[in-house]
């Protein structure tokens, strides 16, 4: 029996009648699909619990992906991580099981109808999808067996079955192409490539960025911008003499999928040209995480209605230009060997970049493909002529290397020519099976996910959004080059020109510290290496010490443009580069928090000490003692950038105070040699302490409110609810004058302070301030909703927390802003991780003065969040937490010494000294957590 063509698709949700399956079929056919991440919903007329028990047995460890639904009465069961059934209450009261399934799974994971397979008799489950009536057990068995077989047939091109591990874009929409390219970008911290289609279109904006490589932009201010590397992924497909184009061709099907688990961008396209030759084209692109100089490209092409010829051009092209209009490349040399290509470019500022390209016919090592190779002034190309047979797929693999003259490994090799290093790597790859190169990359991603993947049962939308966030954060950083940091849009787009802000230290770094500590150290070292620029900025402004650039690139010098012409026609002076000085305290905070979280003071006591001392010196010279005996810092901008040139910004003052104190503490224990080098004078630390103690903090003793800046409470009252629906930032709608004259807050400011200095602010004060500022906050920055989600979760404000979690998850994936076209919002992604781990999971360091070698967990799971699994690096240990509303389970996977873990609820705590290699659990009741128990290793 031939399985219908409509079933030749990798479905993500399979709904079927339980009764038509035999137990053996279920075990043999359903379980492998569940293991691959597909969801199955079994509908039954029988005993729901009995079916659930049987189904759970067959699902084994993959029961999390299984649902059992009662036909007719609305009950829907899922399974917890132990395989125990639990009722899914999603959807409105009294809703049928299908509605619950939609609310709990299909809608949050955006499972499209073409990804749903319904195998049932009439009428069957009321689900949109591809429907097939059971014509008998054989029919079902074949349909399910095909599903398993398809994954094997597709091999590397197989899209993820698990909708929580994929970001997918169907069709081709000229209007949305730029944002899709951003969302689907691939990167490895050394380079990043936007997810443009290989053959290009009129809307395509392909770009590959080289982290840390800056050249002057063509902006009015000529601020530095990331170099756009030569285009390595460009291809041209000629089908029987006609170039393939999704714009002009007849496209039957087009889908791109970012496989978050594998770090691979997949494309699946069925299209025909003017003469009707139809092909099924599949591509894969990856930026190797195993060797950051390697890019991988795979193409599978199958003619669907003809036998004939297909030509594929693989191109290295220097025909690139940045969005600012700058042409960075001054000259190119291109060449072709017997089995490969190379392209070397030199920028106007002297950077040399070398690319090599090598085509592989199949996975056999040393089997170069026959191709015509040509070179031009700015490009090199190889053309493969394929004789294709109807219905048969031909695969082609390509590896590309990229090296530049600024690479540390190029320099370490004592080799001034990056092409020589690139060719050596190319030769090494050529000697391997290309699939092994891909497997290395996949293994590197698997290792990262082991330490970063958070599971949230009951909140699939947030779980998927967090995977997307973690994917881009992992992609953005490299532990191998401390001269680079992560820009505001990571390596996914040209907006912000690759500039580095406080976003990195305050919003992203916690993720790296807990999940990618090697990268965290490298990011902190970037701030050490750019300290000279910060010193120059402080000196130029007439202060001592170090004032970090609000916008930093490679040297650490300030790169914020001084003015901009707004689209309202106004010429606006940009003051943030001059006045947003909290950045220095933010960097110092990050150094301190890194040491507290990792338990390693190595960086803090060496490079970090220099940062702390120099930033403290800045603050000690920056403020002034007032007649009230208080230390005031005037003429600054806080995180709320709607109010400029203000005095005594609470955020700035509190963070500066913290900076002074941690610097003083570090100076007390300073290595004499470093102290001498820093010219650390006697009494300097004491002076910092005194200024910290005198710092003006703006607390209203009557209300407990922290005044955001001097005079804020006297401004015109403002409530964002009055502008609930708007199509522009609130400051644009109100105008600058009114914005500055009223209490509208751009983004978390005092609330941000609460997050960072949680233990310095008494619990009632936290709540009062959150409830005061939140209604005044416009969330005009992507940095804001995640921090509000975090604090709301910790304060037990569940409804608000849910709203802010949702908002944070939608910043890029919600496609509701239009400005992801310039790249993903990296700080927003980092804030989502913090909201989940620090907010909902309630992970934090113990208060100052208490045993620092400890972890406090105060879970604040939101309604409907049944279980969270959180991997965490904490003070040198590798932990996995399992959190439920009333239980914590903890495994210490790695570590050399026991860690004090404190389970907190309602002010009461239970602690355990958790030994490496062991598991512990604590359950809670109304009075708090009961004693921890070891539950076996």
């Amino acid at each position: 029996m031939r399985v219908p063509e409509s079933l030749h698709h990798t479905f993500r949700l399979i709904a079927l009648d339980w009764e038509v399956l035999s137990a053996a079929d279920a075990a043999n056919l359903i379980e492998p699909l569940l293991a691959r991440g597909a969801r199955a919903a079994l509908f039954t007329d029988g005993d729901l619990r009995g079916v659930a028990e049987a189904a759970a047995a067959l699902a084994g460890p993959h029961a999390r992906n299984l649902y059992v639904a009662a036909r007719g009465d609305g009950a829907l069961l899922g399974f917890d991580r132990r395989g125990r059934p639990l009722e899914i209450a999603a959807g409105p009261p009294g809703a049928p099981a299908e509605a619950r399934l939609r609310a709990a799974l299909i809608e949050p994971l955006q499972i499209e109808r073409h990804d749903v397979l319904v195998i049932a008799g009439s009428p069957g489950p009321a689900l949109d999808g591809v429907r097939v009536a059971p014509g008998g057990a054989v029919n079902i068995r074949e349909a399910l067996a095909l599903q398993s077989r398809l994954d094997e047939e597709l091999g590397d091109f197989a899209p993820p079955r698990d909708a929580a591990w994929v970001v997918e874009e169907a069709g081709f929409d000229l209007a949305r192409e730029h944002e899709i390219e951003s969302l689907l970008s691939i990167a490895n911290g050394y380079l990043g490539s936007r997810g443009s289609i290989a053959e290009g279109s009129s809307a395509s904006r392909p770009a590959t960025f080289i982290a840390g490589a800056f050249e002057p932009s063509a902006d009015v201010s000529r601020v530095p911008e990331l170099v756009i590397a030569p285009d390595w992924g460009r291809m041209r497909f000629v089908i029987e003499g006609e170039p393939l184009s999704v714009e002009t061709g007849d496209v039957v099907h087009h889908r791109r999928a970012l496989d978050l688990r594998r770090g691979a961008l997949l494309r699946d396209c069925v299209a025909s040209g003017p003469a009707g030759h139809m092909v099924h084209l599949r591509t894969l692109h990856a930026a190797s995480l195993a060797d950051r100089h390697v890019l991988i490209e795979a193409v599978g092409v199958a003619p669907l209605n003809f036998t004939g010829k297909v030509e594929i051009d693989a191109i290295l092209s220097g025909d690139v230009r940045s969005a600012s209009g700058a042409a960075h490349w001054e000259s190119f040399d291109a060449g072709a060997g017997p089995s490969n290509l190379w392209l070397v470019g030199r920028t106007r500022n002297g950077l040399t970049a070398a690319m090599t390209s090598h085509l592989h016919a199949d996975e056999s090592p040393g089997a170069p493909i026959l191709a015509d190779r040509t070179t031009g002034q700015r490009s090199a190309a190889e053309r493969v002529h394929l004789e294709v047979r109807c219905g048969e797929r031909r695969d082609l693999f390509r590896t590309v290397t990229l090296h530049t003259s600024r690479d540390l490994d190029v320099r370490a090799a004592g080799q001034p020519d990056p092409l020589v290093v690139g060719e050596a790597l190319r030769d090494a790859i050529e000697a391997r099976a290309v699939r092994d190169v891909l497997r290395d990359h996949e293994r590197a991603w698997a290792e990262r996910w082991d330490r970063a993947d958070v599971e949230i049962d009951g909140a699939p939308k947030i779980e998927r959004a967090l995977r997307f966030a973690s994917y881009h954060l992992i992609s953005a950083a490299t532990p191998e080059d401390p001269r680079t940091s992560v820009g505001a849009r990571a390596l996914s787009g040209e907006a912000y020109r690759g500039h580095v802000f406080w976003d990195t230290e305050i919003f992203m770094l916690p993720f790296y510290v807990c999940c990618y500590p090697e990268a965290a150290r490298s990011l902190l070292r970037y701030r050490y290496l750019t300290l000279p620029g910060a010193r120059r900025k402080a000196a130029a402004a007439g202060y001592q010490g170090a004032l970090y650039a609000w916008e930093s690139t490679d040297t650490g010098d300030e790169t914020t443009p001084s003015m901009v012409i707004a689209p309202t026609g106004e010429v606006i002076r940009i003051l943030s580069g001059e006045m947003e000085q909290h950045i220095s305290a933010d960097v110092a905070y990050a150094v301190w928090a890194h040491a507290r979280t990792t338990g390693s003071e190595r960086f803090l006591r060496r490079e970090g000490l220099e940062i702390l001392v120099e930033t403290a010196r800045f603050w000690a010279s920056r403020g002034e003692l007032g007649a009230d005996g208080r230390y005031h810092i005037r003429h600054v901008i806080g995180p709320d950038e709607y109010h400029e040139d203000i005095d005594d910004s609470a955020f700035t003052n509190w963070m500066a105070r913290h900076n002074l104190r941690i610097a003083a503490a570090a100076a007390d224990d300073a290595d004499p040699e470093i102290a001498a080098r820093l010219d650390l004078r006697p009494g300097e630390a004491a002076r910092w302490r005194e200024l910290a103690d005198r710092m003006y903090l703006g607390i209203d003793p009557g209300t407990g409110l922290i005044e955001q800046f001097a005079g804020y409470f006297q401004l015109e009252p403002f409530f964002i609810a009055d502008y609930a629906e708007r199509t522009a930032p609130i400051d644009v709608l109100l105008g600058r004058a009114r914005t500055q004259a009223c209490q509208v807050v751009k983004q978390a400011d005092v609330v941000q302070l609460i997050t960072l200095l949680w233990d310095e602010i008494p619990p009632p004060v936290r709540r009062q301030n959150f409830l005061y500022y939140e209604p005044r906050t416009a969330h005009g920055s992507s940095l804001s909703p995640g921090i509000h989600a975090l604090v709301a979760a910790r304060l037990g404000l569940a409804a608000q927390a849910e709203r802010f979690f949702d908002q944070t998850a939608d910043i890029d994936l919600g496609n509701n802003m239009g400005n992801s076209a310039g790249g993903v919002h990296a700080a927003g992604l980092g804030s989502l991780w913090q909201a989940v781990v620090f907010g909902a999971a309630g992970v934090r360091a113990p208060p100052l003065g208490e045993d620092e070698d400890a972890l406090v967990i105060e879970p604040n799971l939101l309604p409907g969040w049944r279980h969270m699994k959180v991997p965490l690096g904490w003070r040198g240990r590798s932990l996995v937490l399992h959190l439920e509303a009333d239980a914590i389970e903890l495994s210490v996977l790695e570590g050399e010494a026991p860690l004090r873990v404190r389970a907190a609820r309602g002010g009461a705590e239970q602690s355990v000294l958790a030994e490496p290699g062991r598991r512990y659990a604590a359950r809670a009741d109304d009075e708090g957590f009961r004693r921890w128990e070891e539950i076996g290793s």
Partner: protein
Amino acid sequence: MNIIQDAASRAAAPQGHEEPGEAPESRVGKRRVLVTLHRGAPAGAAVAMGRLVAGALQAPLHGLVFAPEPLEAADVPDHVGLSQEELRGLVLHVATGDPGEALTGALAAQAAAYVVVGSAPVAAPDERVGLGELAARALEIATSGVFLLGVAPAPGSRLSRILLPLDGTPSTAAAIAPAGHLARSLEADLDILLVSEAHPHAPPPGREPGALVAPVYMDQPHHEWAAFSEEFLQRFVGNIGHCPREVPARFYLGAGEPAPEILRFADQLRSDLLVLVWHGDLGKHRGAVFREVVRNAPCPVLVLRR
């Protein structure tokens, strides 16, 4: 002066021709520009506008003269208040009877790329749109672009700045191609305007796939505005609107009620022409912005149908 005498009830002109298979741009270029001329209307301004457009597009310029009775050729200048010299080069058609009917017939018969019509009401305005009856009829029936000449002075010797308000939806942008090609032919700049609004109880902005509103998250405005402006122009003017790349285009953002903002920008930017993309619905609760703008525009308005 060529005169073709027609009755209102009959087809008003020889058939225009279209080359099958030509690109839309070239079709536009070879189609006619039709100027409506009748007593009491700003005929001089209409002819001047028609000349500018026809000249830029290298299109034949035709005039549709409305008269209560058939006219002799020599009487046309007096009838419309223009000299023979001012009418030089126009292919004139005289239509008798109801002007609206005559225009309907002419547009049905002629392959007009654009029609130019005075929009200030001579008598009682059309209730739905508040313009003269002929202008209202032209908007109602024309599938081509309609130039509305209100009380604004006659266009100068060239149109150098064209203001094009967009609502951030692909479906609207899809209709602007003629404006882009006209701008190129006129060597004019395009000023693209998006107006943002805020109302406590306003319906949420449209969710048309690919629609853009000014970004709600504006982390660092000096970066975001540049990126957003560029994206808006590329997405709607270039990729969807198919405006030629060589036409200089600038992006502006207005805030507040759309109609006053559009009029404010037209005035502030000294726009020579305002282009409106219109859904064609003059129902009671729709088209308020359109009505207000076409009535009060400080310059001629070109209406393109979505």
